């Protein structure tokens, strides 16, 4: 593990940001591949929260699958993002607002199109979605709340997945497994000693590794959040929002 490679994370503070993924999507008139790719990536990552939202509104699994796919198909194919108000600046807010609009106005049209042979552009793993949805707690959370919460968990999932993949690529799977608890603040001083024993490392080396892991995680988390907001300065605010959503 080299410290320098980790310094090169994409999200080193607000100043060093390139255009975020969401701002690329929003940039009007840029009809190049970057826009489509950025949107496609965002949709693929964050479609499950929307699915859960639609399901929690009382639609059947079949309907919800159709609907979510049709929604994304339309979003990607038509790129009618003019409706996206850049002032809102967040993919999360936009997605939820657009879905509500779609449910209210567009769904019937979209369904007619489907009957007439309209093709799907996206291929989402709908069966998996329902399996996941059935595991959702049966609490009386509103569709909006379940969307927000699922969004936050999906984002964390994505970040941890990337962090894990990075470590596995370097052959550090065991190290990741041992130290991942420290990401959420777990693991104390004696914990490091025990870990050092298991990994045949010195305690100091474990502490350094844990510190690097946390820093890398923070960078990845902030980068992922940055990809969903228009203005990189919104990252802290979005973090606070996610924290509030998760800590209720």
């Amino acid at each position, binding site marked *: 593990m080299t410290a320098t490679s980790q310094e090169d994370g994409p999200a080193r503070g607000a100043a060093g940001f390139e255009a975020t993924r969401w701002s690329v999507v929003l940039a009007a008139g840029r009809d190049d591949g970057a826009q489509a790719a950025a949107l496609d990536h965002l949709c693929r990552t964050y479609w499950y929260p929307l699915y859960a939202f639609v399901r929690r509104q009382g639609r059947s699994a079949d309907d919800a699958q159709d609907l979510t796919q049709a929604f994304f198909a339309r979003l990607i194919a038509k790129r009618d993002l003019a409706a996206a108000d850049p002032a809102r600046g967040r993919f999360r807010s936009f997605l939820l607002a657009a879905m509500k609009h779609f449910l209210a106005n567009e769904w019937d049209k979209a369904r007619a199109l489907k009957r007439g042979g309209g093709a799907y552009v996206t291929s989402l793993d709908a069966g998996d979605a329902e399996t*996941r949805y059935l*595991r*959702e*707690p049966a609490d009386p959370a509103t569709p909006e709340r379940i969307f927000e919460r699922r969004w*936050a*968990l999906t984002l*964390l*999932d994505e970040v*941890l997945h990337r962090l*894990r993949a990075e470590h596995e690529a370097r052959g550090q799977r065991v190290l990741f497994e041992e130290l*991942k*608890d420290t*990401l*959420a*603040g*777990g693991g104390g001083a004696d914990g490091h000693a025990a870990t050092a024993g298991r990994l045949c490392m010195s305690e100091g080396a474990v502490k350094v590794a844990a510190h690097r892991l*946390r820093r890398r*995680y*923070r960078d990845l*988390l*902030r980068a992922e*959040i940055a990809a969903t907001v228009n203005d990189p300065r919104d990252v*802290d*605010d979005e*973090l*606070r*929002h*996610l*924290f*509030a*959503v*998760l*800590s*209720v």
Partner: protein
Amino acid sequence: MNTVAFLALGWMEILLVLMLFGGLAVVLIVVLAVVLGRRGRGAPSAPPQSQPTAKEKVAVTISDPPAHLCPRCGTGPAADAPEGLCPACLVKAGMPTGVPLTASADAAAPAAPPADPRDLAPRFPQLEILEVLGRGGMGVVYKARQPRLDRFVALKILPASLAATPGFAERFEREARALARLNHPNIVAVYDFGQADGLFYLLMEYVDGSNLRQLIEAKAVAPAQALAIVPKICEALQFAHDEGILHRDIKPENILIDRKGRVKIADFGLAKLSGEAVPDVMLTHPGMVMGTPRYMAPEQVENARTVDHRADIYSLGVVFYEMLTGELPLGRFAPPSQKAPVDDRLDEVVLRTLEKEPDRRYQHASEVKTAVENLPHNTAPATVRPPPAAAAAPAPRRGLGILSLAAALAGWVLPILLALAGGLLLALLGVGTDLLVLASLLLFLAFELVALGCGIAARRTGTGKAGLIISALSLSLAIVVIPAVWTVSLSAAPVQEFHHRDVAFGAGDRPLANMAEQDGAWVAECTETQTLRLYEVFDPGLSGVTVLYSAEVRTENARGPVYLEMWCRLPGEGEFFSRGLNQTVTGTTGGWVTMKIPFHLKPGQTPDLIKLNVVAGGPGRVAVRNVRLSAKAP
């Protein structure tokens, strides 16, 4: 034999259903009985009312606090949490150090997200901060350890929003000093207080146990315990009132009961720290359990500043009422004796603490204590009727498990074994009669009655839930099975008549074809393809069954296939045949080969003639014996 076979079939069908339905139920019931039995044994049973010790010590089940909360931030668990880590802490780790995680404007955030224990550690070097115990409108409480004194303490950090109110520091100093003077066995002691890096904190006695809210929700507070808890609260309140300190926020969350059953009141006077804002604080902080001032005296809701100690007495009354009935005294509420098995003399005490006019309440907490303790405890069974759960019988709860198991055994296991044994007996030994069915049913009924007895016994000695359920289920089993078996055994009866139609042809029955008798068999020397007509049965009296034609055949040098053939003549429909082309013999068999072919009659199809033939597909010698015509249910 057919009767037996049919009876056995009927039994086996019922058995299959029973095994499916009953097997599941038995597993369910045994598990239920064991679980209930274990719970009954695990929990200390309620002290009987007649024991005066009930006044001295509060025996309640101390359950562990709700598990699975994140020990660092106190939030609940997340379904499929990423990598099994606490999501809230994960997000928090994304914040640059030093940037506060206060709520953004668009978020419905809790009032004061608790700081991470690790963040707190530098501010409290004298403490080992261990975990979050809880949080509410009045801040976050951590469990901590004082290493030098080797004791656990509770560290309460007051919410920053509160600390920001004008004049707070001064008020905090004054109140905390007064609280630290409150030294009473039923009041959570304040060891220290102060300010650390802008955080106002109180260091308090750590109470290892549960709060009354958890106990009420777990239904672990019997009236007897309520009557033991209330005097302790009264003592603490009276002591504090004498010191000129009001609690102002008596509610189940603030009444702690440690593992030895001692009652401790927490958060004395803290409500005053928030000054006039008491109702607002409670209304706007979702962390507070009730969210509304339901435990407040009416005059306290109207004007929090002018209340006196009688407001605490009203709040105590609300808690008292809730302990007894499980409900809050809202609107036009019923007296406790109508809601719970308590003496109606208690109503007067409870209702007087709940008077809307402070002047009409008890004027001192000590008066409530006296009133409660002067209820005639000595005649306890008459004073406080024990709830059904802590029934009068002093029998150990162990009886519940055993009786429930007995009920399950008699109601389910034995009848199923009986049915199995009966079915096997019928099928294997062929000794089935109506009498056997009747005897089995009577035995079955007897088992169910025993199960019912066990259920009732379990109901009387224990909490009775398992016994009752088992009795009900096994009775329903009896209701289903007995008529079903009876019906089947009746419907099987007509088959018996058919038994007499079973026709066997032996050596004395000369076949229609020209065949020679030899060693008890009939033999034909065929020179070409030939149908050997054996027997014809007129009006066999069969309908809706499968007719079976069997015979033993032996061939020598048969050039073509030899097989059985049966013709059924159905009046009005014509003649139909069945040939055993899947079981033929050729050449020389060397011994006897049994062949059997069926003919399926639909319901209503009644043949008036059945012809039994053997077909020789070529030249050769064919011998036949033991020709037999029988039938079986389709």
